[in-house]
């Protein structure tokens, strides 16, 4: 069976869409556990975006924080401006 160019494109797009949908919803094998497996936790093994924030040393002064922006042109998200 030979396919012309249009049919190849349609088949490729259809396959791509199918793979996207398939990949986005995955059924998980149900693995029951009987006792929580909480081990000695080391948060240094967390990915960078989930690692704890820096803790100030006792006695270290608290940094001067960000200031409120009074500009009416500020584009901060607001519940009544989106």
């Amino acid at each position, binding site marked *: 069976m030979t396919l012309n160019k249009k049919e190849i494109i349609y088949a490729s797009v259809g396959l791509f869409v199918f793979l996207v949908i398939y990949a*986005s*919803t*995955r*059924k*998980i094998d*149900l*693995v*029951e*556990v*009987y006792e*929580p*497996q*909480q*081990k000695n*936790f080391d*948060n240094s093994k*967390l*990915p960078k*975006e*989930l*690692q*704890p*924030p*820096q*803790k*100030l040393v*006792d006695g*270290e002064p*608290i*940094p*001067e*924080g*960000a*200031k*409120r*922006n009074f500009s009416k042109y500020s*584009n*901060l*998200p*607001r*519940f*009544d401006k*989106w």
Partner: protein
Amino acid sequence: MIFNVPTRHEEQTLLIKVKTTSPQKIRIKVVDAEQPNTSFTDRYKTIDGESIFFVRMPVSPKEALVYVYNEKNGNLPVGQDDSVSVESITKAQLEKKLDVVDLGNPLVRSFVNFATRFCYNAGSLSSGNYVSDDRKFTIQYLPVIKDMGSEQTTPARIDVDSGLIEVSKKHFMDYTIPNRMAILLHEFSHIFLNDNIDDEVEADLNGLLIYLGLGYPRIEAFEVFAKTFIVAPTEQNKMRYDKIVNFIDNFENYNTFIS
């Protein structure tokens, strides 16, 4: 029943399909398998037949433990409770509305990053002062919040002059991660988003806008505000809760207008 689910720190929605033989109050909890006091949801629903719990997780652990049980009978292993069964657990994409969350704004981006990392780890952090990477925000993690020696019922508060956020460890240990995020985004909003710094409703809604836009679960937002207001059941808090319910219900439809 407890199931181990490899969530791999990916953002996702867990679809937990549960079946009951008659109307039953079913409890669902999703917790970190390794880090203590780190919970992603703790909710219940009365189910008669089949139902799906949608657990939105903008952040997730490497491995999660999913608890599913009938509240009446307690947590029993598979096969020991005929009143409830788990049909499937499926991972799906997380829906977010990032067009309403201006992460291009450096203050919002910085605070969301800081709050996420603090909330994720609050179950195992010791009391003390924590700062964001750019040192623009500081959280003072206290055993409890006190005013002149008297313990306060609020889980968090912000100093309007310095921007310093005080957080009660006693409250945060019992909260889920989404609960914690909703509280911190409320405090952030007072100073950095509100027109009126003192307006609690404005802070509720501005904070919720970011919270919901990031994909955090609605039920946890309802829950944390209900938990906070129930210990202070004033008319103002009742009005706040009604506005929050209205806002969350309409968020999906972009129909939000608060007068």
